């Protein structure tokens, strides 16, 4: 029986035992008549053997206790990056896939009316994000070039010293910020960031009214979703922060973590 030279894919499939027996026999026969190619196939097999032997000692090592413990964790707990875990009590949000309602099941989207249960500032943040992010000509009132003025102005209006986190390391530059009206005529601040692809992220800062945050109120990290826009919000002392963007959760998580670290 004669056959044409097996192509590259066929040779690999032969090495990996992926060919039907007849076809494999044909290839073997062809290789027996072509020593150069047979040597290549042997080299591939040797590489496989090398990979199978790689780190084989790990198989005999005792399993580190932290890995055994990992299986003991309650199924609904989320391990936050250390920076967050340190100071935060955990409350899992809506639409995260690890919601409060579902014994390990991916959570269903927030029920109708769930939005109404969100803190007021989170709803305000979502509205402000939706209004200003698409804005082409006037996305901000004060541009990043006047950052010192921006910070001074908004700090004065909100009545607390504000910090503007930098997200340059995450690929987002500050576009600027604006003053917004909040609940009961209070001042709110929105900072907008943008990446090279034009994707925008907003950070909404509100100072919560006295009495709304009791000492028992946990500083919680929570997710919320509004269409394709994901929000990430938390309360730190008297300030409520909401980070919003139409980004994958992991990516927004990285941004929110960077912001939290810088504000903390």
């Amino acid at each position, binding site marked *: 029986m004669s056959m044409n030279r097996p192509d*590259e*894919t066929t040779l*690999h*499939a032969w090495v*990996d035992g*992926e060919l039907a027996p007849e076809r494999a026999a044909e290839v073997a026969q062809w290789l027996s008549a072509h020593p150069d190619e047979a040597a290549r196939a042997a*080299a*591939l097999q040797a*590489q*496989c053997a*090398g*990979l*199978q032997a*790689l*780190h*084989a000692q*790990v*198989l*005999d*090592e005792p*399993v*580190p206790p*932290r*890995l*055994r413990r*990992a*299986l003991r*964790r*309650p*199924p*609904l*707990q*989320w*391990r936050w990056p250390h920076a967050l875990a340190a100071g935060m009590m955990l409350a899992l949000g809506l639409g995260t896939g*690890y919601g409060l309602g*579902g*014994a*390990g*099941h*991916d959570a269903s989207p927030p029920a109708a009316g769930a939005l109404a249960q969100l803190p007021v500032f989170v709803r305000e943040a979502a509205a402000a994000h939706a209004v200003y992010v698409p804005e082409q000509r006037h996305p901000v009132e004060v541009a990043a070039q006047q950052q010192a003025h921006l910070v001074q102005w908004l700090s004065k209006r909100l009545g607390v010293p504000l910090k503007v986190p930098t997200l340059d390391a995450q*690929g987002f530059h500050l576009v600027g910020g604006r003053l917004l009206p909040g609940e009961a005529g209070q001042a709110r601040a929105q900072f907008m960031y943008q990446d090279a692809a034009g994707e925008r992220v907003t950070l909404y800062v509100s100072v919560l009214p006295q009495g709304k945050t009791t000492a028992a109120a946990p500083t919680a990290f929570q997710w919320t979703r509004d269409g394709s826009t994901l929000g990430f919000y938390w309360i730190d002392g008297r300030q409520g922060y909401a980070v919003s963007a139409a980004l994958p959760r*992991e*990516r927004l998580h*990285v941004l929110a973590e960077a912001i939290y670290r810088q504000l903390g």
Partner: protein
Amino acid sequence: MDIDDAAAHIPRLRRYARALVGDAARADDLVQDTLERACQKWALWRPPAAPADQVQAALRGWLLTLMHNLFANQWREAARERTIDWDEAPEPGHDPTPALGLRLDLERALALLAPQAREVLLLVAMEQYSYAETARMLGIPIGTVMSRLARAREQLRRLMEGEAPSRVALKAVK
């Protein structure tokens, strides 16, 4: 069957993760994340109606799929910062690796492959999964498994033999 059955797979997961990420501590971090994810998603795990050994094999495949998802998230983040894209198409003339004629040992050569290439190579060659199973775990077409595998092996061979790689789009050396 419960989550404790996953414990039996930890040694294999550790070895695979070690080969995948290189560093021992980071490998165990990845395994830990995988196990925690498995706890969270345990209710979604559907054991096949099959003999016990096949159920265990399916569980290991499920765990490896979770690990792949976590690992993919990691390198997507990292890719923005410091790696060169892994294009499916060969890319002649673009070679960020030094053509020094250095022979690298298997571990170091493996670390130079693009993460996508390493995953396919390790699942097929180290973990002995079929192309179809590998494709399913990675969520890619079987043809992509085959093409990545062939390229990964060729790159690995060249790196280890100290040949200047010709059409290699490798991860940049840190």
